């Protein structure tokens, strides 16, 4: 048991990676065997992550050195800097890993029945597992170059998944836009890594954070990293790839891409709070205010654009853009506020909102997928009166829309109230805009709810049936999590969010875990 936890950081990557390449072999034998295998693997990985999480909450940061004679041997021999690829897992990393794996698991359940009639699924599962590996790797790694590699794995695999429906021109177009923009972004990340390596001869995040001097080149590297990662996180006005990609991918892929976007946001947080964290109190306020401004812009553009969309998935995608703004505002407020008390509250809200957003938006996309599955239709003008035929789906959509619009007592409200109250202390205007946008979001989803489910039955939708059980189970998992998070927000905050926030606001412990033991 103990040794499993010791090796779990590596296993979290290795098991899905191994499974990714077994699935094409398995699918030659039997379809169901492959689907079941993927589910078992993802469930096992999730379990492993939970075990690791428990250990981290009890014993603090865990590190894993690949290929060393001991998992904790960061400085072999007389080395003064850490060599080898090191995984460093603190509260924030494991928080993000839990998000990614939960979503991957739900996506696998959902796709096992969503794609029942389609071919080419062996590749699909390989890519889905690779996206999982990429996300988890980004979140676990303590090495900047390794971060880049996993970032690229995530973007390549998710691009291939977005183009899964190759017969739809829109999917191809979205995938092409996604790969162009993300490969350019990733190249600038690599450039920034080069700048930092050239200065400090290190790639380890902890070692770099320890020696960072805020020279001109460091600032250039910060700019490149920030620009590329905020773009990958979908912050306005660089959000335009996001509605395309979210809207045109198969819904089970979309939720994986949503989680991958959050992994990029994790990158932003890691860069701002840990890598450049030593000068946090002095220098980062300007970055914080920029992030707040961009966050407000993101919320505003996302929400207002969602109102005028005609495609169901695209509307939800723009709402997802808006939701990202809240997290960015939380992080930006924490940076701008410096040492004041509400900085932690803002950060708590922002970090908690990552999980909530993935659950809410994920549930909405799954419902959208169910509607597409049942009706083969995604134009809002051609849909209506589905409530009589698809009762469970209606309930799930109602839960999702209330959660995403931040209605009490669901989870969206719990994190948004933290953001509202802390930003109000920084500047009331921020929270007023945030609240108004949230109300507008509710209005949008009431509109969608009305045009999808209410009203009289439309003639071409008379023979619509409820979707298969697998999809309902996937939606039910997310809905249950939403309700649990909504009813016990204090408990969730104390258990998983507080360690994450503590890890962010205390970069020294991250540095000392690697360098202090030397």
């Amino acid at each position, binding site marked *: 048991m103990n040794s499993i936890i010791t090796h779990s950081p590596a296993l979290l990557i290795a098991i899905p990676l191994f499974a990714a390449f077994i699935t094409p072999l398995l699918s030659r034998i039997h379809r169901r065997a492959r689907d079941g295998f993927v589910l078992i693997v993802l469930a096992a990985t999730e379990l492993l992550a939970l075990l690791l999480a428990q250990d981290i909450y009890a014993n603090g940061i865990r590190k894993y050195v690949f290929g060393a004679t001991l998992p904790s041997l960061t400085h072999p021999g007389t080395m003064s800097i850490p060599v080898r690829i090191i995984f460093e897992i603190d509260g924030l990393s494991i928080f993000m890993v839990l998000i990614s794996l939960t979503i991957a698991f739900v996506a696998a359940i959902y796709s096992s029945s969503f794609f029942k009639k389609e071919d080419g699924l062996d590749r699909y599962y390989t890519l889905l597992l690779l996206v999982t590996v990429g996300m988890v790797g980004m979140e676990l790694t303590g090495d900047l170059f390794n971060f880049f590699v996993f970032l*690229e794995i995530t973007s390549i695999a998710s691009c291939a998944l977005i183009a899964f429906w190759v017969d739809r*021109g829109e999917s191809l177009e979205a995938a092409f*836009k996604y790969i162009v923009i993300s*490969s350019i972004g990733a*190249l600038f990340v*690599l450039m920034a890594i080069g700048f930092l390596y050239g200065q400090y*001869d290190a*790639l380890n995040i902890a070692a770099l954070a320890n020696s960072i001097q805020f020279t001109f080149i460091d600032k250039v590297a910060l700019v490149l990293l920030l620009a590329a990662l905020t773009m990958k996180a979908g912050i306005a006005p660089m959000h335009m790839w996001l509605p395309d990609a979210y809207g*045109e991918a198969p819904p089970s892929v979309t939720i994986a891409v949503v989680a991958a976007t959050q992994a990029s946001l994790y990158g932003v947080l890691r860069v701002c709070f840990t890598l450049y964290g030593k000068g946090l109190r002095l220098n980062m306020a300007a970055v914080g205010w920029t992030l707040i401004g961009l966050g407000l812009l993101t919320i505003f553009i996302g929400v207002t654009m969602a109102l005028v*969309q005609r495609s169901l998935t695209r509307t939800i995608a723009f709402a997802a853009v808006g939701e990202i703004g809240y997290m960015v505002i939380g992080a930006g407020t924490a940076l701008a506020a410096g040492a004041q008390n509400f900085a932690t509250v803002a950060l708590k809200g922002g970090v908690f909102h990552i999980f909530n957003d993935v659950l809410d938006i994920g549930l909405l996309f799954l419902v959208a997928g169910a509607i597409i599955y049942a009706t083969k239709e995604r134009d809002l003008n051609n849909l209506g009166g589905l409530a009589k035929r698809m009762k469970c789906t209606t309930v799930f959509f109602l839960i999702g829309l209330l959660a995403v619009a931040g209605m009490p007592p669901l989870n969206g409200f719990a994190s948004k109230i933290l953001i509202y109250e802390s930003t109000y202390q920084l500047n009331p205007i921020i929270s007023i805009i945030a609240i108004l946008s949230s109300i507008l979001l509710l209005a949008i989803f009431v509109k969608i709810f009305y045009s999808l489910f209410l009203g009289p039955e439309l003639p071409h939708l008379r023979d619509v049936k409820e979707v298969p059980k697998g999809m309902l189970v996937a939606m039910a998992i997310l809905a249950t999590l939403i309700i649990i998070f909504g009813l016990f927000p204090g408990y969730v905050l104390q258990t998983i969010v507080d360690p994450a926030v503590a890890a962010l606001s205390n970069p020294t412990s991250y540095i000392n875990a690697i360098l202090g033991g030397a």
Partner: protein
Amino acid sequence: MIYNIPYIAVILLIMVGLYAVVFKRNIIKMVMGITIIESGVNLFLVTLGYRAGGVAPIFTNLPEERQIPGQLVLPIPQALTLTSIVIGVAVLALMLALAIQIYRQYKTLDVTKIRRLKE
């Protein structure tokens, strides 16, 4: 001064690549632009790893007069470059495959006409 020439080449390559991505209408040319940016970044990494008077860190038939490990360069930038090249190949293949499929669906490679997704 002579050591700075590669850095100038890096900037030029990235500028050329970005020019191709931003101003060319043919998506194959945009793909080329991305590849040129990638070459620029790779050149940057390799240049970072250059040390005057250093030799490659390979023990096989190393000249005897070289000091070990003093004059051997640390091969990390080269390793990074190689990884980046491998990733670049994957991205390139994916983008070209997408370009072929897009051409089948849209009957054009003009990026201004490949915009069913807007607003």
